[in-house]
């Protein structure tokens, strides 16, 4: 039996009818058309579905939609402020931190949470922080560079740039 839930996503409330067994990621993608959040596995390894729940990076395949009521969810679609990219989005673009782009939204969401906790990380700390996010294209090197560059921008308070 479906039941109604209200999900607070990217600053807006969405009321949806969901099965109790529905995963947050499926509701985001299929019911709310927020398809920037991706699914790359079925065992919570790959991290492509990572979103922020109350500021914390969470694999949205590990959360039931009904559990996410009364939380504040941020997806990749909520990262840019109008035309202005978030510094992490900008850094992934500038450092060539993506190729096919499938892992990128999850990677960015994980990095948001990580940099909030560790604003001045070493390469090794970045590599450890993103080990729950798989990328098959880049070999990670430019992702590490992008997160490091974004850390500098976020520390110095520089604004992002428009698309």
């Amino acid at each position: 039996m479906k039941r109604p839930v209200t999900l607070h996503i990217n600053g807006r409330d969405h009321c949806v009818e969901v099965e109790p067994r529905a995963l947050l990621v499926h509701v985001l993608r299929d019911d709310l058309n927020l398809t920037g959040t991706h699914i790359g596995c079925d065992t919570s390894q790959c991290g492509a579905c990572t979103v922020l729940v109350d500021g914390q990076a969470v694999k949205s395949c590990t959360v039931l939609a009904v559990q996410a009521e009364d939380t504040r969810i941020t997806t990749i679609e909520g990262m840019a402020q109008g035309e202005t990219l978030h510094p992490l989005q900008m850094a992934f673009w500038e450092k060539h931190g993506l190729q096919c782009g499938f892992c990128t939204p999850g990677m960015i969401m994980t990095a948001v949470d990580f940099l909030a906790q560790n604003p001045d990380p070493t390469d090794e700390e970045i590599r450890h922080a993103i080990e729950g996010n798989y990328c098959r294209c880049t070999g990670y090197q430019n992702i590490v560079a992008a997160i490091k560059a974004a850390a500098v921008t976020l520390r110095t308070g520089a604004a992002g740039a428009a698309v």
Partner: protein
Amino acid sequence: MATLFGSGIKRREDPRLITGSATYTDDVKLPGLCYAMFARSPYAHARLTAVNVAAARQAPGVIAVYTGQDVKDRLTPVPCAWNVPNCNLKIPAHPLLAHDRVRYVGDAIAMVIAETRAQARDAIDLVDADYEPLPATADPEKAAQPGAARLHEDVPDNLAFTWTVAGGDAAAAFDSAEVTVSQRIVQQRLLPTAMEARAAVASYNRGSGQLTMWVTSQNPHIHRFLCSVMLKLPEHRIRIIAPEVGGGFGSKIPAYPDEALCAFAAMELGRPVKWTEDRSENYKVTIHGRDHIEYVEMCGTRDGTITGLRTKVYAGLGAYASTAAPGIPTILHGLVYSGAYTIPNIHGVIHGVYTNGTPVDAYRGAGRPEAAYLVERLVDIYSRKIGMDPFQVRRKNFIPADKFPYTVATGITYDSGNYVGALDKAEGMLDLQAFRTEQAKARKDGRYLGVGVVSYIEICGLGPSQVAGAVGFGGGLYDSAIVRVYPTGMVRVYIGASPHGQGEETTFAQIVADEFGYPVESVEIIHGDTDNTPQGWGTYGSRTTAVCGSAVKVAALKLKEKAKLLAAHLLEANAADLEWKDGQFRVRGSPDKGKGFAELALMANVAWNMPPGMEPGMEATAFFDPTNFVYPFGSHICTVEVDVDTGQVKILRYIAVDDCGPPINPMIVDGQIHGGVIQGLGEALQEIAIYDDEAQLLTGTMMDYAVPKASQMPHLEVAHTVTPSPVNPLGVKGCGEAGTIASAACVVNAVADALAPFGIVHIDKPLTPARVWAAIQQAKGAKA
């Protein structure tokens, strides 16, 4: 004016990808969409005696259920598209749904269509089939033995083919050799693991008879062709769209039954149908890579001249011949046995073997990594045997830079190369002498350091269509571009290839913008839709830039020539007196008189004042068919430390020097190298698809299959040399597969060097701690 060619500008595809606004196949939603799921065999080999779908049909939300019996007379079996000649190739029928026998775990037996994904998922559990299990094996050497259980009635000994490559007189070379080394090498099965698994959305318009399919494809035109065969639908009624595709690595080249069955269901039901593979399903049914068991030998002189190479290979094909499968361990493998060297005598015998594993097909490098691995391992084993430095042995046997084009013993002709240049550069980055000193000192302290080197070549830029035909490839290998210039001068380029992460929306725009004197923003590259792109052959085999990029260049040059003639007409000058300078055609000697490309495009599009005989419009199409393959090359060096107590291998440095000709966008080239090297390091250190004795896949999820994580992989030091190719107008080679072709052997060579004090010559990859530790214990036991 500065050129964009050679400039590492930011990618133009990125804004949509970093904002979550890109559309991948599973993101496509259509009114009335319903969902497909497949019931699949849990047995690796069994007679399928009954498939009872009554309960599934009654399940909530289920619209239809189809079995093998329902479709077998209505659909053509999955075609194999690479009919390699002269090897007695046997291609047994591959039904879209199994109807009398299943041959691997994951073979589909029924398709359920339901209103929601969840309802389809629930209903496949209600499909009840009767199986009579048969003996099974996923081991290609065992499957080829007399008495092994036969998969296909018409394929004795499970032998799909026996293909031979020969040049010179290998038997005589080995008989008279001063030194011979041999090794059994297992090149394990790998799971390609594109981060986006496969998916398809099919929509059929009964009124127009048009089928539209969004599908995770590296080659939509090939998908159109093969779907037309399977569905018995005329090709012009099929539109294939490869929207954003989340990586492929070869796994999205083939035609698969499940995708075509979605189209069948959409046509039957008159409703759009979506199927999205989950990862466990992807590991079971999307093609795997490699799977060779090899017996290899090298012979040479005591002073380091290699005189012969011989192989016998069992190449596992899995249960059926996938789209390109027969060509991978043959044409793309055996023909490059000479590597970077002048090996005069070569003989290889490749047995293609059907097993009860998932079908094996092209995986990043496709045949060439397996060749580079066995050649480069043998060079090291031979060097050790004669007591020579492996760097020196490579130098001694390199094809000299002044001998190109060079025809090797296997009969192919390398276009250009400077192998010693790449090796010198890599060796300089390492400082080999300093490392050897450190290594000797460390050994005294009981620490085991090693250095590995690989000097690879690859055959890519696939390729001349005439050769494709001669080697049985069921298509052409040219590629194509339409350059269309609008009245305002803005440009759209429609290309036949189908990039999925490689950045050609940027690099191809760089090519065109340079020709027209434009900023890159004025040029847009369109790909992936068979309804608006010219016939092309897809993105694989490191071919897109060398072949399709050349078509883009040729088409742009055609328009530039037209623009020049138009400019001459409008300037009332002789075309011979015009020069292209600062983005304008100018009259020599009258630098104030000039016409830019945008103005000329407008004049051509309105056609108010055309030269006599010139057609209106500013649009050109080019089909580019190269005269030869391209042969990128390079040298990679890796240093490692092996913890002999735990078997853990730590990469200390990884140096890659690659030569893919002049880079159009160096940032993108480096990114391709990074990704390729790390995939090869995964292969070297941790990735393996394991089947048990009953051919059950044990590494069926990402919990079990060790995809490299950021924390496990090193920082790479990447550099280049530049040797242009003479076979295309850009001079470019390919860079997508180079890293993978080089890096697996590089690491294993380094570990073997580290463990030389134990007398260890070879350990089969992946070099997991358990395997390395076991090899050390065995070596210690042998010495004791």
